[in-house]
């Protein structure tokens, strides 16, 4: 799988700095993990098997994400009065995620949930599982778990025992829900999400990479903009990584911060850091390309953006171009972000002329380019090595996608619950070879600046003046909902809920292109889950 790749082979041959697991990403010793389970869980979870290979009832028949295990332990604390030290909890989550986690391929389709990016509508979930499970949870919630059939049955029983009205909900009360869930759905889940899988067996046997070292990072912080940075990861005594990060936003302002990271299951990067005084979290997956995922405010998981990083392995490598597009026939300044860069080896192919090197350093080269070629993606070349990053040359922005396309904001601030905001961005596309926007051959250009407004979603929303009451959107595309509680000005004293259309306007030369997204401004959600 992923980590046996060219770079790893080079590292093995001695040319790189990538270390193998066992040296760096050593899981807690098995004995220590077993003892943690005995001490903290053994009172209720019966131990069987051998001393070297113990089996703990319920626990040993499941695999899940680090967040999944954290939820389980939190639940034991809140519902079962377990007392566990912070150190034991952290070590248990790590031990369980390392030894009973998910393979990268198993987690890959559902990373949005781990990344806390819940403003999307899932597709492709099995209809039976939608009716039984995904009518309350995300489909990813259970798809990020692996259990034996009996364990899936016990999970059904848990729902009945803990939330007894489960069988009375809409889509339950009109059928024999418990019998269906326990006898049919548990089997379906055991087939789709089995405990033992080839993916997991293989992943366990693969060498794991070390994340110690110097990382080049690009990302986006809502309200601040795109940034590039250098992040250093040093191994700490407790098995985590000490992080420091310095960089700057696109407007030139600087950023810096530090924090801690943990690499679970050999690839699941989770970091908490303070960036210019603001607590942030990173959720990324490690693969042969590097780290990629999402960074968001610790206090507001909805406010975040994508983040990518590549490790310095002693070779020249490009992470990103900022901006990633230039209009055909025009000139633009473009910054190439990477490691060990040398301007004289840089090229962008026949259609993009590098007219001038504005500045150069090992982490960044600023160039002035002229887009002379036809529409298309022009990959960056370092010497004769093509990089995955490229510059898009386009004729016209034909379509802009508002992201998230579908979102839920939540009123708050008046009582117990904070407001849940939404952070918007726009991705621009050209129409592609067929000249028709909205088709598969559209050329993705990248994130674009936009101006923002909200409109009522339809006549009824207009009549109720949802666009007046439900909140407002700022110049950065951040929507802030209204205060919660009954509003006597509104029909039926309704809260400041509403259905809105979020409109982004992108100016492309003389042209103006609009895109829109659907925003539901809803009531507070009083249940805070680790994973929805």
């Amino acid at each position, binding site marked *: 799988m992923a980590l046996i790749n060219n770079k790893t082979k080079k590292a093995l041959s001695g040319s790189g700095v990538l270390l193998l697991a066992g040296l760096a990403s050593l899981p807690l010793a098995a004995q220590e993990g077993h003892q943690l389970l005995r001490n903290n869980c053994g*009172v*209720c*979870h*019966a131990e069987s098997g051998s001393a070297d290979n113990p089996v703990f*009832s*319920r626990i040993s028949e499941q695999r899940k994400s680090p967040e999944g295990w954290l939820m389980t332990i939190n639940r034991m604390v809140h519902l079962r009065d377990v007392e566990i030290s912070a150190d034991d909890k952290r070590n248990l989550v790590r031990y369980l995620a390392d030894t009973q986690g998910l393979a990268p391929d198993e987690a890959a389709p559902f990373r949005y949930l781990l990344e806390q990016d819940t403003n999307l509508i899932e597709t492709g979930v099995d209809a039976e599982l939608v009716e039984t499970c995904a009518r309350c949870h995300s489909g990813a919630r259970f798809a990020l778990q692996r259990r034996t059939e009996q364990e899936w049955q*016990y999970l059904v*029983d*848990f729902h*009945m*025992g*803990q939330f*007894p*009205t489960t*069988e*009375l909900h*809409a889509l*339950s*009360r*009109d*059928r*024999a*829900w*418990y*019998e269906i869930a*326990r006898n049919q759905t548990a089997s379906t889940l055991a087939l789709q999400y089995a405990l033992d899988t080839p993916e997991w067996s293989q992943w366990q046997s693969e060498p794991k990479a070390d994340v110690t070292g110097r990382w080049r990072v690009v990302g986006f912080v809502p309200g601040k903009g795109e940034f590039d940075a250098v992040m250093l990861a040093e191994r700490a005594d407790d098995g985590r990584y000490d992080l420091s990060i310095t960089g700057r936003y696109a407007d030139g302002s600087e950023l810096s911060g530090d924090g801690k990271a943990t690499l679970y299951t050999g690839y699941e990067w989770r970091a908490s850091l303070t960036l210019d005084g603001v607590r942030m979290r990173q959720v990324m997956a490690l693969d042969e390309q590097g780290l990629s995922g999402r960074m968001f405010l610790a206090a507001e998981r909805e406010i975040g953006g994508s983040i990518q990083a590549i490790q310095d392995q002693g070779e020249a490598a490009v992470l990103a171009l900022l901006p990633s597009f230039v209009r055909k026939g025009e000139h633009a300044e473009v910054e190439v972000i990477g490691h060990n860069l040398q301007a004289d080896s840089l090229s962008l192919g026949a259609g993009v002329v590098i007219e001038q090197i504005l500045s150069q350093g090992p982490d960044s080269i600023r160039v002035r380019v002229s887009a002379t070629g036809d529409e298309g993606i022009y990959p960056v070349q370092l010497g004769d090595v093509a990089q995955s990053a490229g510059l898009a040359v386009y004729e016209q922005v034909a379509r802009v996608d508002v992201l998230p396309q579908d979102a839920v904001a939540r009123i708050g601030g008046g009582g117990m619950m904070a407001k849940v905001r939404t952070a918007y961005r726009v991705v621009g596309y050209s129409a592609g070879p067929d000249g028709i926007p909205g088709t598969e051959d559209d050329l993705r250009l990248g994130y674009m600046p936009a101006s923002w407004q909200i409109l009522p979603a339809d006549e009824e929303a207009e009549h109720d003046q949802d666009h007046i009451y439900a909140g407002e959107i700022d110049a950065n595309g951040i929507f802030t909902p209204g205060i919660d509680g*009954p509003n006597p000005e509104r029909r*039926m*004293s309704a809260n400041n809920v509403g259905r809105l259309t979020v409109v982004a306007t992108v100016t492309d030369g003389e042209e103006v292109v609009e895109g829109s997204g659907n925003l539901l401004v809803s009531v507070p959600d009083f249940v805070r889950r680790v994973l929805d």
Partner: protein
Amino acid sequence: MKLNRLFKQHSIKGLAAALLCASALPVSAAQEYLLTVTRPGHLHVIDMKTNEVERSCDIPGKFGSGAITVSPDGKTAFVLSNIWEDVYGFDIRSCQIVFHAAQSSASERVKSFQSLTVSRDGTELYTVQNPTRLLSDRYEILEPRLAVYRIADGLGAQPVRTFPVDRRITKIAATDTGEVILGGGDVKAINTQTGDVRMVAALQNWDRGPLWLPPDAFAMHSQGEQANEYIMPYVTARFSDEEWDFETAEWWWGLSRVDLSTGEAELIEAIPFEFIVFNFITDPRDSNILYGSFNTLSKHDISTQETLIVKEMPHTYYNLNISGDGSTIYVGGTSSDISIHDSETLEKIGAIHLSGDMTTSDLRVATIRE
């Protein structure tokens, strides 16, 4: 229906009075009390002559769902408390607790979903129990059962009989025929002596063919005491063809109404689905006239399938009930005010303000005839 009930419930002296005024004012000699529960845990006893809260009784335990059932003599109100586990019986004339059943034990947690009713002779209390065995590392889900309590056992009562019943049973009601109506996926009746169960009105298992949407019934609140009926509304749709187009389907409110004298049911789709109604009640004077509440208060004639009046309400009211003479509608639940309306016009004629929110609580009428 009404006369039949009066024959059974009244002494000879009461019968004579009832016969004299049976058609116009069936219970004019009686004192009616409106009962409801508010958070954090108060049973309010409201005099329906003055529309004043006469007393408020403290309910032990955490808020349940506010489910209430009343003894046939109107003197005792049984309330589900402690998150649907415990039943407390209150003498509504004094707030004295005269009955308590803790349904759960150390190894078994028992929840009742609104399922609470008293036998027509006033001697037995019935609940539907949904038990869960608490094992050290998991739950074991046990079969639901009808539990029969002797009300005379008072505090610390334990079931004297239990019988297995279906899952998903919510509100229940006792009949003159010695049965308890069980509202679940279907409406069934259980004999409280033998445990024999019969189908009263098939809903989930109805046989209407492919052009009818299987009904979705909800039975969160108990009412119907003023019309001597058990009423379970449901939503269904009749499709025009096997394309099953929801847009072109005819949408209906249906009603399963069980006559509590006979245990017999009618199942009718009688009210076009034009807006959401959370609960319906039948006018005690005319079983064709129904009233419904939610965001609106509405009046319907099921004989003509007409919606007669729709009144926008200032907020959501889950629940409603009616005076025994049919003249006054009480609309409550959800928030902390009960809105009082004239049943002819649906015009608001008063309000009762309570100390807390009713949320999901029942709105029941206790009638004391003495």
